[in-house]
């Protein structure tokens, strides 16, 4: 984990309100892994806080993140041009891990939660893992990375909240509808809290004991575990866990969502 000055290679729209940012690494970086994230400056000194963004794709010399334009920071980030530099602390968080015996993997992603799912597919591209991907988007305009999901998944379903593209619905219902076919050994998921809550409820309603890991979002300060700004409650509420340091990936039963 290091703070680096990175150079922007690409920073362009990918879908409605979604930008793809690719930046080069000034030096070889160890421990880059799927499900980890970066904490990046937004190119405007009035924003004191970095924005946490999931590693979507990476190689020796570069990292790609995809971000939705929401507030003033991501708006400012979208104006940064190729060739400019940003300050980035990476890689952060624990990331997703897959056991040797976990061969059939269900990926359930919603909204910006689809991007860390891409990083999992990339990492196990030539492995013996078989992925069943269920990705939910707001509408047709927001859909992105569809080809990558299809290319790297045994089976890939895209759903939209308003039904303007392929099936109407959300990623969790699409997953449960197809669970008989997917028969996953493990479930990896990322998306807004309501979606993760639906996944948790769905599993317990069906009495399913499949190991399930979720990547959470919380507002951050330091991003490296020191300031206790980004906590979530551990199940039972007797202790807190830091999303940035103890997470962002948690076993679904471990934390209150």
């Amino acid at each position: 984990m290091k703070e680096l000055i990175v150079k922007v290679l690409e920073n362009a729209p990918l879908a409605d309100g979604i930008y793809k940012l690719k930046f080069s690494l000034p030096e070889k970086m160890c421990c880059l892994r799927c499900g980890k994230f970066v904490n990046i400056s937004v190119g405007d000194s009035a924003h004191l806080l970095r924005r946490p963004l999931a590693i979507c794709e990476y190689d020796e010399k570069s990292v790609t993140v995809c971000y939705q334009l929401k507030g003033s920071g991501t708006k400012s980030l979208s104006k940064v041009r190729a060739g400019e530099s940003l300050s980035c602390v990476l890689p952060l968080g624990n990331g997703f891990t897959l056991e040797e015996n976990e061969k059939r993997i269900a990926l359930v992603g919603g909204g910006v939660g689809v991007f860390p799912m891409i990083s999992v597919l990339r990492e196990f591209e030539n492995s013996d893992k078989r992925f069943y991907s269920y990705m939910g988007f707001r509408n047709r305009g927001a859909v992105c990375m569809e080809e990558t999901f299809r290319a790297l998944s045994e089976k890939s379903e895209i759903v939209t909240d308003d039904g303007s593209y392929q099936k109407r619905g959300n990623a969790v219902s699409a997953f449960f509808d197809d669970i008989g076919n997917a028969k996953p050994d493990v479930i990896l998921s990322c998306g807004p809290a309501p979606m993760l809550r639906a996944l948790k409820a769905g599993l317990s309603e069906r009495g399913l004991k499949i190991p399930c890991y979720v990547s959470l979002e919380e507002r951050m300060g330091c991003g490296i575990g020191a300031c206790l700004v980004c906590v979530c409650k551990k199940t039972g509420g007797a202790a807190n866990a830091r999303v940035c340091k103890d997470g962002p990936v948690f076993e679904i039963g471990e934390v209150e969502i």
Partner: protein
Amino acid sequence: MADLKVNLCGVEFKNPVIAASGTFGFGKEFDALYDIGVLGGISTKGLTLEKRLGNAVPRIAEGRSVILNAVGLQNPGLDAFLAEDLDFLKSKNTVIIANVAGKTVEDYEEICARLDGKVDMIELNISCPNVKCGGMAFGIRPESVYTVTAASKKNLKKTPLIVKLSPNVESIAANAAAAEKGGADCVSLINTLTGMAIDLERRRPLLANNTGGVSGAGIKPIALRMVYEVSKAVSVPIIGMGGIVSAEDALEFIVAGASAVQVGTANFTDTLAMPKIIEGMNAWLDAHGIAGVQELCGTLKMNG
């Protein structure tokens, strides 16, 4: 290489740059980025007698060149700190300042008694605005500043006492004088200004705690004025903080009357902020042919 050493109440700092309470935890995390032994000192996360889970999230919001926080003093409690965190800090060659907070005068008395002699200095947080039932109340009026300072000092035979002042007051100079009268060996200022950020769509405050402490570069002019004002009101040394980002900022606080500085929010923006500030102070002093940083302390001349 200029001489950055500073001696506060008998405690020797290798340089005047101290990590501000609440932004640096107990040092472990930042030590993964650089050797925190380079720092003059570290003020720990605010400690209370009992373990505290702190406020609900969101605990942070952003303004223009400022942030708001309402962590609510989440901390492992005094015992856990002594058992699990102190040793690591001791392994690092840096001054250990325990920041402490309480709900009652008795809390402060007990926490000081139990920490006496175990850390290099104790910093009383009598102004952290998050905790509803305690903290804030002590730091408002001179009388209560005096009371809590005297009660704490009574139990400190070995460890020097720093009283950390709140800016949300009528006269921070009067409060500083009250702290001095109460036996404070040093005052540190400023803690956070109280503010609010609103989510217009939901028409609710962004922070779960509704209000929070404002800090960061935008409030530097207010902190600087308050350090100068206090330097004219007390003779105990002053630790200045509030929006320090660069070496020049730190030197401005020293010129205004501070003997040392704390850096908090800047650690979020630039994880290497403090090492850069230390380097920058050295370079500035060398470039200006000044042998020791303490020569600058309180050298501000007024206009007109």
